[in-house]
C-alpha cells in the first residue's frame, strides 16, 4: 500500500521534479499580481448565462483566471461548477455571455482552442475493456497530435506504468482518476481544467498530485481546479473563485481573501466580558466582536489573524488578561459565509445540520 502510494505521480525520467509544496505565501500573491498585469488571463468569462429549461444554472458568471496560477474554483452543490467546466470545454454552449481561452474568444466554431487545454470533467471516462495504455492511445488519436513517447511519460508520472497493460475495468477509482489526470495532460496543455482531481486518491496520491499541479503552475501553465475539498484548495491554490447560485461571489488571491476573513477568539473571565467587548470595539468596526452563545467567556473578534497580538495588547491595556487566545483564518469560514443557504436541496443545511455555524 505504501509503495503504491509513494509511486503515485513519481518523477519520471522526462519529467522535471516538482518543488516541495509551499504553503500559501506572499510569493504566491506576488506571482498572481505579476501574471494579471503582464501575461493577462488564461481564462475569462463575461456574463456567462446557462439555463436548463427555465432553471438558470449560471446567471452571469464573470471569471478571471490569471496565467500560471493554480485557480481553485469553489461552490456548493448545484452552484454551477460543473456547468462552467462543461462550457469551458465546449461540451455545452452558453445562452449568453462570452468565454476567452488563452486570450482568444472561445465559441461554437473555436474547438481548436481546446488543443491547448487539458480537461478532466466529472468522472474519468474510458473504455473499460481496453488497457490504460490503449485508452490513452485512443484518446491521443483525437484533438491535437500527441508527441511520441508522451503516453509512456505520463503513465510513469501518474504511477501507472506497471498496470498500463491491464484493462481499465480492473482499476480502482483512484487509478482511474490518475489515468484521467494523465489523459488531461496528454497534449501538454497550457491550461488544465480539473474537476475534483483528488477524488479516490489515497493521501500519498493527493500530496503527489498537489506537488505535480504546483509544479505545472511554476512552469507557466494554468491549473483550474474545481473541488469541494476546501482544505485541499487552501493548500493548493494561488487564487480562488467562489460561486453561488450561478454567480461569482468572491474571487482573488487566497491570502488576500483570507486576510479580511480572519478571526481571533479570546477567553476572559465571565465578569470581564462586557469590559473586554467595549475595549475591543475600539479596535474593530461595530458588530465585529461577538460573544459565544455558550456564555463560556469566549469572545470572537473578526480581525486579521495576524493582529492577534494587537487584540491581546488592547485587552491588557484595559486591565483585562485573556486566559486563552486563538487566531485563525481558513477557507471554510469564508466559503460557508459566502455560500450559506445556497446548497441545492439543503437550504442552508447539510443533511439537516446547520451550515456555517462555526
Amino acid at each position, binding site marked *: 500500500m505504501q509503495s503504491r502510494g509513494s509511486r503515485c505521480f513519481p518523477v519520471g525520467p522526462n519529467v522535471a521534479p516538482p518543488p516541495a509544496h509551499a504553503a500559501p505565501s506572499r510569493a504566491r500573491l506576488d506571482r498572481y499580481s505579476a501574471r494579471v498585469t503582464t501575461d493577462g488571463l488564461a481564462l475569462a468569462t463575461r456574463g456567462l448565462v446557462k439555463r436548463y429549461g427555465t432553471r438558470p444554472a449560471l446567471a452571469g458568471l464573470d471569471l478571471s483566471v490569471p496565467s500560471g496560477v493554480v485557480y481553485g474554483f469553489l461552490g456548493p452543490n448545484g452552484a454551477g461548477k460543473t456547468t462552467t467546466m462543461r462550457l469551458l470545454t465546449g*461540451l455545452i454552449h452558453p445562452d449568453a455571455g462570452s468565454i476567452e481561452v488563452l486570450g482568444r474568444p472561445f465559441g461554437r466554431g473555436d474547438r481548436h482552442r*481546446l488543443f491547448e487545454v487539458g480537461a478532466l*470533467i466529472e468522472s474519468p*471516462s474510458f473504455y473499460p475493456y481496453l488497457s490504460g495504455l490503449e485508452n490513452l492511445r*485512443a484518446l491521443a*488519436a*483525437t484533438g491535437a497530435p500527441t508527441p511520441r513517447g508522451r503516453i509512456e511519460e505520463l503513465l510513469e508520472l501518474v504511477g501507472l506504468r506497471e498496470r498500463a497493460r491491464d484493462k481499465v475495468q480492473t482499476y480502482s477509482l483512484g487509478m482511474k482518476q490518475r489515468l484521467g489526470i494523465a489523459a488531461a495532460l*496528454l497534449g501538454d496543455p497550457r491550461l488544465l481544467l480539473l474537476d475534483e482531481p483528488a477524488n479516490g486518491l489515497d493521501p500519498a496520491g493527493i500530496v503527489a498530485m498537489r506537488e505535480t499541479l504546483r509544479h505545472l503552475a511554476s512552469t507557466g501553465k494554468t491549473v483550474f481546479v474545481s473541488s469541494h475539498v476546501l482544505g485541499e484548495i487552501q493548500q493548493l491554490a494561488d487564487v480562488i473563485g467562489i460561486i453561488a447560485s450561478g454567480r461569482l461571489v468572491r474571487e482573488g488571491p487566497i491570502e488576500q481573501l483570507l486576510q479580511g476573513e480572519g478571526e481571533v477568539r479570546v477567553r476572559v473571565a465571565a465578569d470581564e466580558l462586557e469590559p473586554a467587548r467595549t475595549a475591543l470595539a475600539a479596535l474593530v468596526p461595530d458588530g465585529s466582536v461577538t460573544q459565544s452563545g455558550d456564555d463560556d467567556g469566549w469572545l470572537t473578534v473578526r480581525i486579521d489573524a495576524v493582529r492577534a497580538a494587537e487584540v491581546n495588547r488592547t485587552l491588557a491595556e484595559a486591565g483585562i488578561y485573556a486566559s486563552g487566545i486563538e487566531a485563525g483564518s481558513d477557507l471554510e469560514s469564508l466559503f460557508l459565509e459566502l455560500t450559506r443557504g445556497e446548497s441545492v436541496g439543503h437550504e442552508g443545511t447539510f443533511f439537516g445540520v446547520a451550515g456555517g455555524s462555526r
Partner: protein
Amino acid sequence: MRIFVATLRKLVRRPASFVTLGLLIGLLALILIAVSAAASQPGARPQEREGLLLVTFPGAYTIILSFILGLGGLFAVIYGAAVAGSEWTWGTLKSAVARGESRSRYQLLSFAAIAVMIGMGMLIAFAVGIAVAVVGANIAGVSTAGIGDSETLGTLPELLGKGWLAIVEEGALGFAIATLARSQLAGIGAGIAFFFGEQFASLFLPDVVKYLPFNAANAIVTTPGEGGFSGGGGGGPEVASLAPDQALLVVLAWLVGSILVATLFTERAEISG
C-alpha cells in the same frame, strides 16, 4: 484518419464484436446443419426436403447471404447501437470533444470503422456459412458440384457488396438510434424494437413496409417474391419486396439519412455526464 484507425483498434478488441459475430455464425451453422440433417432423414416430408436447397450449390450462396442479411440485420442494429451508445454512456465522446475534436468527424470516422468491421464480419460469416453448408451437404448426401459454378461465383462480389451495404445501413440505423437515445442500453433496446416493429408493421402497412430499412435491405439480394431466410421476425404476412435496384436506392437513402441524423444530433447536442 487517426480516429478511424484508433476506432478500428478499439472495435477489434471489443467483446461486442466477437459476441455478435459468434452468435451470428453459431445460429447460421446450427440452422444449416439442423435443416440439412432433418431433410436427409429417410422419412422426411417433401416440405422438409426443400430445406436441402440451403446446402445445394450454387443456390446456397445466395440463400446463405440472404440469411446473413436477415439475421445479421438484427445483430448489425445492436452492434451499431452498442458502439454509438457506449460513447455516451462511458463518456468517451465527451473526452474527445473536450480535446477539441470535431464532433462530426469523430462520428463519421467512428461509423466508417464500424462499417469496415461489419464488412469483415459479414465475410467471415459468409465463409463459415459456405463451409458449414458443404458439411451439411455431405451429411445430407447432396452433391457439392455446383460450388464452383463460375456464373454464380462471378456475381458473388456484387452480391457481397450489396449485402455489405445492406447490413451497414442496418448498423447505421442502430448507430443513429443510440446517438439519439445517448445511451447504449436504450439504443440497443430501441434498435431491437424497431427491427421487430417493422415486421409487425407488415400486418397493417404492407405497402409501406417494403420501403422500411430492414425490408429494403433484405430486398437488395433477395429476388422479388422470394422469401429466402430474410425478414428476421418471420411468420408475418407476405410482403411485396422492392426490386433489387430500387431497394439499393432506398437502402442508400436510409444509410445516408441515419448517418446524417447521428452526425447532426451529435454536432448540436449538449454533452453531459
